[in-house]
């Protein structure tokens, strides 16, 4: 790709198009080049000012990974443990944990599920192109947080 003297400007634009590479290829090339040159990574998390949308985003990812891990752990346990589910449930029952701790545990289970669900809906709205203006991002964000807490409390009291 050479810089043609700008006599015919439209010709310049045509030949500025790169050979067909995918985004994935470009990203891999970038990473390979920079790690080969042993370049350090620029500071990012340590210097950027944290914001509510930022924290919600990583929490969304965290709850996703956590819930996925919990489901996998449950499935593995189902395959490995000898007794049936009601047996182990009765085992936990017999530990006579007080109602407050049970309520707390239910809240602790419900909160990641509801947060991930509500923020997931918020993400789907973004995928439809809606709600990108900064005030809207904050408004929908606070709505998700509020709804998650309320839903989890309601479920814990069931």
């Amino acid at each position: 790709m050479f810089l043609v003297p700008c006599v015919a400007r439209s010709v310049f634009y045509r030949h500025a198009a790169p050979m067909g590479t995918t985004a994935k290829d470009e990203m891999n090339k970038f990473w390979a080049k920079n790690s080969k040159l042993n370049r350090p990574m620029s500071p990012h998390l340590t210097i950027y000012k944290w914001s509510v949308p930022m924290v919600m985003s990583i929490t969304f990812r965290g709850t996703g990974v956590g819930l996925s891990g919990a489901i996998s752990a449950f499935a593995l346990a189902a395959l490995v443990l000898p007794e049936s589910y009601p047996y182990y449930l009765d085992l936990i029952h017999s530990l006579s944990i007080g109602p407050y701790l049970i309520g707390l545990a239910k809240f602790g289970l419900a909160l990641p599920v509801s947060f991930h669900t509500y923020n997931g809906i918020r993400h789907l709205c973004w995928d439809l192109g809606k709600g990108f203006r900064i005030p809207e991002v904050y408004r929908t964000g606070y709505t998700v947080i509020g709804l998650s807490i309320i839903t989890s409390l309601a479920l814990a009291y069931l």
Partner: protein
Amino acid sequence: MAAIVRLGSVCRRGVKPLFYQSTLLARPLVVPHKYQEQPYQLTAKIHASQALYAGSGSKAASLHWTAERVLSILLLAMGPAAYFNPCPAIDYSLAAALTLHGHWGIGQVLTDYVHGDTKIKLANAGLFLLSTVTFAGLCYFNYNDVGICKAIALLWSK
């Protein structure tokens, strides 16, 4: 005099060509709306040229993205379905949808944080193994034990 000439060029060709000229004596005007169409015309021209030279792109990534969103919406619908109509069909559908949603989700996390050809291959192989075991475990639980819907109901009835 030159300033008037520059302002004149803004009126004729829009703001963008102004920045390519080396002597800028006047600040660009707030361009009247109809003149803003022209920069987009130039952009459209570049994209059209790229289509000629870009490699035959596959739509796989785009279709995957759409499938992820469709699955998310499906999973959302399964929530109330499982609550109002618990049955084996819902149990197995939930097992499949949850496993696949988690598999694709963790896949995105790996794509974001894992770099280097071998590491990517290893991580994805590990994920595939985990998801297979998860699905197997959930199906085993549905077949040999109380099933997902009943399990959640029992857990909450504590």
